[in-house]
């Protein structure tokens, strides 16, 4: 029901936008909705860059934490550490956005990477990555723990070390669940809004850029800033800039919905394997 409503609402509005807009402006240089320039590629690369940074941070941290919790930690340590990791998941994204802007950008991005801007896609990506770590961690941990103990016992029985068991036995057995965790993380990173809206800059618009250290705009950030600021601004061609957010929203919905379906399929494969 709800997803049907989303699709209907988005598709209808998106097509009315596409009908009104000059299609060539969808492929110009830069995303400046108020000036009638709607380059989808600009915000798409922004989203991809932020997601790449986020995944580079979150993949090793999330998987490492999951492996430690599932294979190495004593039950007592696990009881203590897992809720703490889940605490990180319950922190609202707007808080991490502020953290990314006020702490990550000045202390990490400006010092170590020589960024000169007050905003950057990098800082936003790092912030999003921190949000993604607990998600990847807990889904991957579930996948690792779903591997039956027999497999581990068998490997230990022929003299394998714990590292060998973890990497050569448990990891391959759980690999589809881990892939699912990564896909879910990616879809979360693509859909994350507040961190980007606060820390990435590019509120009014952005040139097409591949510079991670400078400000930029993402799909979610574009929607947020359209909603936040330029409410009823008409462009020179008499087009309502606000309407473009339905189009971007539709793209985002299709993208993340597709990723979620793929990951669902992987999770089901895990369940089938060891029932």
């Amino acid at each position, binding site marked *: 029901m*709800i*997803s049907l*409503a*989303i699709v209907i*609402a*988005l598709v209808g509005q998106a097509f009315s936008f596409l009908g009104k807009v000059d299609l060539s402006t969808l492929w110009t240089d830069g995303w400046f909705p108020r000036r009638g320039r709607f380059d989808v590629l600009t915000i798409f690369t922004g989203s991809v860059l932020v997601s790449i940074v986020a995944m580079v941070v979150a993949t090793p*941290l*999330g*998987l*490492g*934490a999951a492996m*430690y*919790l599932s294979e*190495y930690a004593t039950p007592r340590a696990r009881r203590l*550490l897992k809720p*703490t*990791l889940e*605490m*990180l998941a*319950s*922190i*609202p994204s*707007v*808080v991490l*956005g*502020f*953290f990314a*802007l*006020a*702490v990550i950008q000045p202390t990490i991005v400006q010092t170590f990477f020589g960024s000169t801007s007050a905003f950057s896609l990098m800082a936003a990506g790092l912030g999003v990555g*921190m949000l993604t*770590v*607990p998600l990847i961690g807990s889904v991957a941990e579930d996948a690792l723990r779903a591997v039956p103990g027999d497999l581990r016992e068998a490997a230990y029985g022929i003299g394998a070390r*714990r*590292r060998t068991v973890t*990497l050569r036995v448990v990891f391959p057995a759980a690999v589809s669940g881990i892939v699912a965790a990564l896909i879910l993380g990616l879809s*979360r990173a*693509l*859909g*994350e*809004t*507040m961190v980007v*809206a*606060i820390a990435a800059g590019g509120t009014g618009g952005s040139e097409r850029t591949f510079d991670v250290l400078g400000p930029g705009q993402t799909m*979610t950030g574009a*929607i*947020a800033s359209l*909603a*936040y600021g330029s409410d009823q601004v008409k462009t020179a061609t008499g087009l309502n800039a606000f309407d473009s*957010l*339905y189009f971007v*929203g539709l793209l*985002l*919905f299709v993208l*993340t*919905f597709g*990723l*979620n*379906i793929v990951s*669902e399929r992987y999770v089901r494969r895990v369940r089938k394997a060891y029932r």
Partner: protein
Amino acid sequence: MSSIPASATRSSVELALSGRSRDIRGRLFSGALLLALLLSLAILLTLLVSIWNDAWPVLRDRGFDFLASETSSLPERAGVRQGLVGSLTLIALVAAVSLPLGIAAAIYLQEYAKDTRLRRILVANIRNLAGVPSIVYGILGLVVFVQALRSITGQASYGRSYLSGGLTLTVLVMPFVVIIAMEALRAVPWSIREAAYGVGATKWEVIRSHVLPYAAPGVFTGVILGLARAFGETAPLLLAGAVTGFLATSPGGPWETLQGPYTALPVQVFAWSRLPGQAWVGNTAAAIIVLLATILIVNLVVIVLRTRYERTW
């Protein structure tokens, strides 16, 4: 086999028995894993400490005044009262709608619906909806509640009302509530149901007197976690018309209030974080502390409830 000298066998066995410390790569590996975990926790700690450092001067100097003041363009007079009241009102709305609807949907899907193709598609769909970015729900709220249902959600506020925001958040948390409630229902063992059927109970009697009481702790945990999530959501509220600047509330009855303009705590955090000047950084951090404290209390309640009512079969 006879080609392996006995001494080699003996030494390798000795190594296996005594030589745990010699497995350097294994130790490095486990160290790296632990480091990954601790680094994640260190991030949490850094985040809390740095925000607390920014927030402390404001909380110390303003104290209760910060909680009781309304929005203002002067940093030294701005407070979070309207945001806090707004967030709590929204949460009450979300709870009032999503609790009955979510539990009813979960009972239907888990207990009544036959395992048909349609049910499987519905369940998979609900799972997918839980992964849809929250800002997409914001667009839905804008189209449906703010624009299409404006006559209900408040003509005077152009639909940008408590009702719109609350209903948008309800749609957002419903998939979570349904999924977690379904898991809780599924966890009730069949033997309990069979016993009730055995003494002649009807299906509804079994569900009401046996399944629901046993599933209740799990269901409420899910609902409260969903509410905590709704409490921190910002993006959908931006689209569903939360006020980001100055907010003047007009007096009126409860229905007029619900149809009136609103703001929420995370929305205030977002708006303030974009304002220049050190004073606003302090205010933003202080508002975040209020937000986090509320969410932390909710989470603690959940943990206490969970350990109290948790049972093993």
